[in-house]
């Protein structure tokens, strides 16, 4: 049963799908950050977030 509880965390992985596969969230030029239009820095930010998310789930999985 322990396994099942941990796998529940896998639902967290749905978040990056929704966040990056729904362009209306990010298809805009402003606000810019360091010269990067919003669409670009938003997607770059998600690269870090998905790495962090996988790391967290890995940590929980192997606790």
């Amino acid at each position, binding site marked *: 049963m322990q*396994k099942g509880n941990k796998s529940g965390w*896998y639902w967290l*992985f749905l978040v*990056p*799908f929704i966040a*990056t*596969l*729904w*362009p*209306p969230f990010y*298809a*805009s*030029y402003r606000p*810019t950050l*360091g*010269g*990067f*239009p919003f*669409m*670009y820095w938003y*997607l*770059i930010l*998600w*690269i*870090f977030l*998905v*790495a962090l*998310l*996988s*790391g967290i*789930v*890995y940590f929980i*999985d*192997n606790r």
Partner: protein
Amino acid sequence: MLFLLVTILGFSASRWHRGDLNLIEEWGLAGRRFGTFVTWFLLGGDLYTAYTFIAVPALVYGTGAFGFFAVPYTIIVFPIMYVVIPRLWRVSKRHKYVTAADFVRGRFDSSLLALAVAITGILATMPYIALQLTGIQAVLAVMGLAGHGFMKDLPLVIAFIILAAYTYNSGLRAPALTAILKDILIYVTVIVACIAIPMQLGGYGHIFHVAATTLAAHKGAMILPPKMYSAFATLALGSAFALLLYPHAVTGSLGAKSGSTIQRNAALLPLYSLALTFIALLGYMAIAAGIHTKDTSLVVPLLFIKTLPTWFAGFAFGAIAIGALVPAAIMAIAAANLFTRNIYREYFMQDEGPNREAQVAKIVGLVVILGALLFIVAIPLQYSIYFQTLGGMWILQTVPVIIFGLYTRWFHRWALFLGWLIGMVFGTWMAAEESFKTSIYPLHLGHTVILGYAGIWALVVNIIIAFVFSIVFNGMHLSNGQDETDVHDYDTEPGKEVAQ
């Protein structure tokens, strides 16, 4: 000179973590021993190749924001990898599966379904190997090294002979070791290019500004226009699933030493996505630098020549060329594994011993590499690109068989086969309708038109057919074969309680 180093590394790889290279598990999967570090380079090498280095900036240069589908694609691929691939790894380790088709055969007791998966994999991989060469060709063209007639292809032929020889000799160990060198070169190139070029061009803000203005004049767009939303999202989603099921990605994953090695990698591999994003931005830098070319595959080499010191441009070109060899080798090995395990052994030589099997795989590896070389020398480049577009679509049609198969055996094997067949035909038909120029197909639903990735449309049809016919066939009590795997094979890390 860099090539020389690669060659030496490739051959000495056979000594590394020595195993009996006369066994297919050793040659084709390096004995499933790669730790987190090597697997990271090996899978990273799959993810972005010389072709990516050339094609992604070329697409961004031509269309703008749409080319950035590569970024969400390489973001969502990691959650999928984290959840799905360790299951495939565990069951493959337990039952000594070398390919995804091996798994399908064991799970569904159907050599026909396994053959379908194997053929799809080989068909999709061949043009992909050929396309790696376009990276080398583009670099050579810009360096002015491209000769005429036979000489034109000579450097390519040499590169491929090296590739073929070391793959034959060392198996998966060769690309694994060279991948480390290759990626160090590529990371250095990307970091330097993404700092030095913007400094010259007046900063990222200026680059985006110039690119936005220029793109607007050429039907491109810096920000994704609403009518492209669905095409962008479906292409990213489809590409992510396809990437993981490509035979070379499966080979790279199964070469890992444990399921958690793969999961650790899912958390570490996004560094490659970051590099890929900056590689894509090279497309905008080229616009801002005023690069004009009809042949978009030359965008990156031309940009490097124009904005970087000659010696560093040379270094970068070497990195791109070597970047072509590593994935090409993994792909050749993956195709050889598929052919040997799922076609040759299944249909020609059922009683051969394991040594014979590895021998066949090595020879097939050579044939695949030579075939790819012929492909690129004899067939116009455009066809390779068409095939590559089709390849991704085809691979995607194995999602129900492999990924659903990892979770449930509810689907009937014949229903899955029908779904695959119709998905393949339908996908190819849609691509033909678009004259193979694009993988985006406008779906007409009543009066609304939805632009989307044809591979996803075909997959939807595939899944519906597999679902409906599973109900029919299960209802008819048609035999669904004997499953040789067990529920625990998927969840439990082998080796923890089974001594291997």
